[in-house]
């Protein structure tokens, strides 16, 4: 598959009064053409900072890309000037955010806002832009598009607003769409509609999606591949089946086990104790170690490297080292793992790892 974006060893820090917050501490991943990569993690794990850095949307100061590169179409986005970045942002890479109300301008008609995005990047006349805007509204499933063009954001419901935001993001046929919790503020039935819409449009336009969320249900629904972030690092990355049915990192185990499953009503929910580390002073060794019931001595001393599980699956935990003791994941995770071989076999591959 063709790589469309490569992020290599990205480090991002925020310089604040109290010191340096190391929000992203060495993130590496590739994005392939036409795929959906989900980035999951709790607040403060660096998932939003990473995605904003791809668009160069972080204000400097206080933010600073300390190290690393973001390769897109042969260019390193971390090195581009603001002017060069403007020809990429919104045209080749676009982004949608959690709250559709605050991403739209309340004093401008919907039509104008969509046309603005078109006229900024494409050499079209106003009439052509209007036509294109109407097409876009129809593409995102808004009826009476011509009438809706003249309306203001407050005349739309939350789900409809998010459709408008998606229409704006798609205005220039971007290669990459970054969606930062696009459905978190919506009701489940509306969320389901928006997710279906995004998959549908992806099929039609063939773009790649980076989907940022903390909802594992949404991930299972949308993603081809999943990257799990913790304390500014990717701790595990793999295909959606590998992450959900053959997870290797104790943090991923914790996330999966802390969701109530349908048949475990009477058992206590598995919960990850404690809270995420302070990235002003990241702990020595593995940042997850203090919350990790499976932590080894070495976790407090030395950060684990990425161990390869399969061609597509990597995890940063010392448990994968050949000298590590064998441990039993939580029961809910073990049940998932029992299904892995079946699922892989059904897809015609051989189980690995």
């Amino acid at each position, binding site marked *: 598959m063709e790589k469309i974006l490569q992020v290599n060893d990205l480090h991002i820090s925020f310089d604040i009064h109290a010191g340096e917050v190391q929000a992203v501490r060495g993130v590496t991943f590739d994005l392939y053409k036409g795929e959906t990569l989900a980035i999951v993690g*709790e*607040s403060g794990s660096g998932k939003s900072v990473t995605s904003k850095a791809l668009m160069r949307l972080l204000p400097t100061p206080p933010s600073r890309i300390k190290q690393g590169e973001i390769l897109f179409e042969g260019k390193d986005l971390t090195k581009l000037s603001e002017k060069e970045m403007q020809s990429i942002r919104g045209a080749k890479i676009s982004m949608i955010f959690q709250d559709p109300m605050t991403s739209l301008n309340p004093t401008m008609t919907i039509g104008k806002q969509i046309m603005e995005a078109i006229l900024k990047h494409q050499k079209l006349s106003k009439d052509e832009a209007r036509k294109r805007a109407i097409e876009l509204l129809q593409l995102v499933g808004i009826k009476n598009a011509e009438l809706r063009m003249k309306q203001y954001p407050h005349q739309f419901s939350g789900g409809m607003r998010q459709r408008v935001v998606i229409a704006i993001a798609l205005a220039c046929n971007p290669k990459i769409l970054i969606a930062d919790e696009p459905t978190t503020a919506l*009701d*489940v*039935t*509306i*969320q*389901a509609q928006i*997710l*279906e819409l995004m998959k549908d449009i992806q099929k039609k336009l063939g773009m790649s999606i980076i989907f940022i969320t*903390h*909802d*594992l*249900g*949404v*991930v*299972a*629904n949308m*993603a081809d591949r999943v990257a799990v972030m913790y304390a500014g690092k990717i701790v595990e990355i793999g295909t*959606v*089946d590998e992450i*959900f*049915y053959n997870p290797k990192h104790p943090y991923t185990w*914790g*996330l*999966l086990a*802390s*969701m*109530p499953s*349908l048949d475990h*009503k009477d058992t*206590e*929910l*598995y*919960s*990850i*104790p404690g*809270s995420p580390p302070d990235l002003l002073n990241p702990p020595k060794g593995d940042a997850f170690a203090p919350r990790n019931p499976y932590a080894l001595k070495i976790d407090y001393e030395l950060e684990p490297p990425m161990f390869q599980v399969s061609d597509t699956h990597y995890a940063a935990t010392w448990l994968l080292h050949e000298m590590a003791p064998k441990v039993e994941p939580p029961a809910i995770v073990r049940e998932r793992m029992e*299904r892995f071989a079946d*699922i892989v076999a059904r897809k015609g591959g051989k189980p690995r790892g």
Partner: protein
Amino acid sequence: MARQKLLEVKNLKQYFPAGRGEVVKAVDGVTFDIYKGETFGLVGESGCGKSTTGRTIIRLYEATDGEVLFNGVNVHGKKSKKELKELNRKMQMIFQDPYASLNPRMTVADIIAEGIDIHGLAKTKEERMQRVYELLETVGLNREHASRYPHEFSGGQRQRIGIARALAVEPEFIIADEPISALDVSIQAQVVNLLKRLQREKGLTYLFIAHDLSMVKYISDRIGVMYFGKMVELAESEELYRNPIHPYTKALLSAIPLPDPETERTRKRIVYDPAQHGYKDGEELEFREITPGHFVLCSEEEYKRYRAMYA
């Protein structure tokens, strides 16, 4: 042992004026009971009236019509200060936003002890602080936290403070309005486990309002589903998930993405259209029992059909 009703909500209505003589029927004739020691889940989409129901029960709003009986005593209507105080002590609330629901200018000790002071539950300063320390430990914080301010805590810790505040007056009944929606997944499990443990230890009764249906199913004994101010279905939580009857409940359940890629690939979403009932004008909709303990809002005709299908 027969289950004892702690709370009876009868035909509760809460209308808000919407200007120009119009009214919004936020809650429009809702009836249900909550038994002692159980967790009753209330689910529905934003704007369906679930939070308003909770707030009206605890008398944050004056009900437009209907009754709320707590231990057989009407919550609404004219009350002496003493009676009100007594009710306020027995019913407490935990809110969604742990940032907005704690006064930033008060120390954690004062926040937690406010109820203790109002109800005169501690005779001396030492006793008051002793209670605060105990409560902090009960919710998994420690006594050093007492002198700090809310901004020094994370979302999950603040929610624990909110829970400690609710527990301070030794209530029987707690209304938890989306208590975990603002928290991260790993922290949600901590708070839910805490709520469950407290229920076991103190015999608390919960009304748990939420839109996250998987968590509601986990925590609730029975669940009510609301749609546009009406309760459309009520059943034990297992039963509701296994045999949803009302088409809206089916649509709602089919829309929840599960953390399971295999089932997600084959998911079929059901869309609810209120017109699909084909109710005639003047047709009487009632909350009817289809199978024991499983109620659905339906017409006479639908009732017969549902009975034939499910009973």
